């Protein structure tokens, strides 16, 4: 087996295992009460909407396409700006068109991945950071009553980071020609889903 084939085989199996770990249901070995519920709620929240999931994975995909330093600058920018948006939500500062903003983020990020668009790093970071505010605002206003704010925050920041990580790992396929095509296809899918979310938001 050639080195290239070994790497590819390893990578495919790694993805299979990683995705299985992502999609495994909770064991619920211990019934969460009190503060533990806040952490779990926060952890689950980014997964609660396909629009969130696709946009955050798209950030990882685009970062992987752009390579260093964007590959880590974008996943650093997103959580910080998302928290700013969440803070605005907590303080009651309105951000108009939250659902539209989230849908547009999926459209634009999908287009970036589809077109392998390579803007300057600062432009990419501004784009990602701007839309992160919309995602964060949605999270920040949705803490269920009686749960711990810090643990909820920890949960959804960690879950968001993991989604970026999934995007980056998947995005590493761009090193192979077929992978680049697949990545662009994924970008197209995300953009189309973004249009669907936008239609649902305005209809």
């Amino acid at each position, binding site marked *: 087996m050639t080195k290239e084939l070994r790497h590819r085989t390893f990578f495919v199996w790694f993805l299979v295992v990683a995705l299985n770990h992502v999609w495994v249901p909770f064991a619920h070995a211990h019934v969460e009460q009190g503060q533990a519920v806040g952490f779990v709620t926060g952890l689950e929240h980014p997964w609660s909407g396909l629009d969130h999931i696709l946009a955050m994975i798209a950030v990882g995909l685009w970062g992987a396409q752009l390579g260093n330093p964007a590959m880590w600058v974008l996943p650093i920018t997103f959580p*910080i700006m998302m928290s700013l948006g969440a803070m605005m939500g907590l303080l009651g500062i309105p951000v108009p068109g939250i659902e539209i903003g989230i849908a547009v983020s999926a459209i634009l990020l999908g287009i970036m991945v589809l077109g392998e668009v390579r803007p300057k790093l600062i432009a990419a970071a501004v784009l990602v950071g701007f839309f992160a505010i919309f995602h964060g605002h949605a999270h920040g206003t949705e803490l269920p009553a009686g749960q711990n704010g810090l643990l909820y925050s920890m949960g959804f*920041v960690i879950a968001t980071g993991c989604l970026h990580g999934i995007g980056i790992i998947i995005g590493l396929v761009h090193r192979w020609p077929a992978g680049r095509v697949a990545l662009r296809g994924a970008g197209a899918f995300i953009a189309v889903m973004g249009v669907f979310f936008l239609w649902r938001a305005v209809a």
Partner: protein
Amino acid sequence: MLIAVIIPTVILRPSTAAAHLVTTGMGPVYDGIGHLVLTPEDLVPALALALYAGLRGTVPGRRALFFLPLAWLLGGFAGLGASGLPAFPLPALSFLILGVLIAADLRLPTNAFTILVVAIGLVHGFFNGIALKNGPGGLGLVGIMAALFVLVALVAAFVLSLKPPWTRIVVRVAGSWVAAMGMLMIGWFIRGQG
């Protein structure tokens, strides 16, 4: 012969195992260790400080190793004598400051870093002292100090040992998460006040 049997028998006689400490509890020192491990407001900044110390190198790592537990202990003793919590959640600031320092990989001069370590130790120790006043007290603070020493030693050494550039990036991403949590903690506080 008899003495050779009796003496070891007396010395080696087992006492009550107390395997499950339902009636005795774990003791104040272990309660202190447990308090640190189970309190994210303290554990996360301690971890973040150890990560930052590891990123900065061996000298800052050693400074954090010794100054953080000592400052925490001193702050804790001050807290034991205090009444009432400060109005502003100062621990949230340590999340934000440390998170930004790690994410941006900012290089503080060693003395400035030491001052930061001492400040964080004093603040968190003070809050811990208030929390432990009616519980494990001073011995709990000793437990926390020991746990911090071990935590900083392990985490900072681990980060120092990381060689590939992408591993440092993973640490910086973790820092951005900590900064994000800090921002949210401040948001929760302001919302609660409003």
